[in-house]
């Protein structure tokens, strides 16, 4: 399965999407993540694996400046998005609108299913009903939800089942047409069949956007990610081509142990 996108990843000249240098995150005085340096390339799926408390979610929060919501969270280091220092942005909302996030627990906003997906396009100024219809159908189809909800788009999104709400969340993130899509344990509330359907969608989406995938399922990282980072206890232990890591070529013993399920 050597797609054109995967070939691109091998290209060292490929555009950097995110450039993270010496990133440390603290909650009060307690470090959650220390001295992480990594880059995410355009049109790749970048996997992050690691046990609980490794700092994976904190890392994602930092990338679109969601750390502002947590008062005792301190961030040090540089993050460049498309070459732009995100700490220097004069319009944080514009930054966030380019980065879609899917949280581990689904958040169906208390709006209709249609409005959940149409919200972001509306915020960015699309008012034409026909245009919105197209966006809503496309995003829901991609999130593998369209067939289940197409006859009841006017019912409340918050009343869907957990798995459906998770797919609604993904559809909503896609409606932003983000540059970068960050998924934090998206499959936690989704059944295996739907998970596989969404995974297929993610592989397709790679040609349009960059995807950062945090997952507890190491096999999911293997199936999807071009490169994978292994986080452990607030450190980024290793970053490498996913194939290398999973075929026993990881440099660190702890990475091999984690992938083989010997701990965590």
């Amino acid at each position: 399965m050597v797609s054109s996108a995967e070939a691109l990843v091998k290209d060292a000249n490929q555009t950097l999407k995110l450039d993270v240098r010496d990133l440390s995150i603290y909650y009060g005085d307690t470090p959650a993540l220390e001295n992480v340096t990594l880059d995410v390339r355009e049109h790749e799926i970048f996997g992050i694996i690691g046990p609980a408390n490794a700092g994976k979610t904190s890392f994602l929060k930092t990338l679109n400046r969601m750390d502002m919501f947590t008062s005792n969270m301190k961030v040090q280091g540089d993050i460049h998005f498309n070459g732009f220092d995100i700490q220097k942005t004069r319009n944080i909302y514009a930054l966030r609108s380019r980065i879609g996030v899917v949280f581990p627990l689904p958040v169906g906003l208390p709006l209709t299913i249609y409005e959940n997906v149409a919200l972001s396009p509306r915020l960015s100024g699309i008012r034409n009903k026909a245009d919105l219809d197209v966006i809503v159908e496309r995003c829901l189809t991609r999130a593998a939800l369209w067939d289940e909800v197409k006859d009841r788009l006017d019912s409340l999104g918050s009343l869907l089942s957990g798995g459906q709400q998770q797919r609604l969340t993904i559809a909503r993130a896609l409606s932003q047409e983000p540059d970068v899509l960050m998924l934090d344990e998206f499959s936690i509330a989704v059944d295996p069949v739907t998970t596989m359907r969404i995974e297929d969608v993610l592989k397709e989406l790679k040609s349009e956007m960059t995807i950062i995938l945090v997952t507890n399922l190491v096999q999911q990282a293997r199936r999807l990610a071009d490169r994978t980072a292994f986080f452990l206890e607030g450190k980024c232990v290793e970053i490498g081509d996913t194939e290398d890591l999973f075929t026993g070529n990881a440099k660190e013993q702890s990475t091999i142990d984690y992938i083989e399920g010997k701990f965590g």
Partner: protein
Amino acid sequence: MQQGGNKMSHDAFDRRTTDWYIDKLMQSLVFIGGISAIIFIIGIFVFITMEGMDFVISRLDPVEFFTSEYWFPSDEDDPEFGILALIAGTASVTGLAMLVAIPFALGAAIYVGEFATGKTREYLKVLVELLAAIPSVVWGFIGLSIMNPLIIDVFDVPVGLNILNAGIILGLMAAPIMASIAEDALKAVPDGYREAAEAMGATRWQVIFKVVLPAAKNGLLGAVLLGVGRGFGETMAVLMATGHSVNMPDSIFDSVRALTATIAAELGETAVGSDHYGVLFTIGIFLFLITFLINLTADLIVRGVRKG
């Protein structure tokens, strides 16, 4: 868009759009709204302090003020400014009111929040809120014309306007507000807690007593304290139902006078700037500080709910 991504994004992250300015404008507007509450409360405090300060500095004897039970503020030769009897009046009425209100309020909150369903629940909620909206003068009227003869008949006492009367009236006044806030506290307990406990085979009461009430305890305590604050500051009903006579009470059948009622009844008859005028404002400062403390405590406790 991705192809030209770099260039476009640079501009977008640096360009402040109309939405960005609207956001900042709205933030400033709601900031003004929020800060105005602080300005008003400081303004009120400054006003009553200025009116009372002259008296506090030149005439006030703190020991007499807090420990003398003699309140003769308008005696021309030898005025006495002791508010101990007034404090005792307010404290006894508020205390009794809480004894009446807390069981009622918690009972109502637990029934409405945990047991009642469907229409019963909706009607009860509306009624409780309606009860909270009854003006205090109406409660005072009930105390004067219904409770007064009732207490004289039942307990065979000469006067029915006393601590018992005012305590019951004030308790019934405070109960709906306490019930309403307490019910909110119960509602804030996630249903997952109840389901987890019921799934273990716990009875409804066990679930409420072991899981829901402990989880809601800060909110409930806050509700009680807000009720205390309400009782403490209540004026009209207390003025009408206590009998309004300065008295160190020995029993709940004694008439008393409350701090608030004293201000309400006497302020209109004093000369501005006189000692009597000043001492009433000093009582005002005292009341302000007490209610401030009660509300602050209640607020800190309720806040503890959200953190814990």
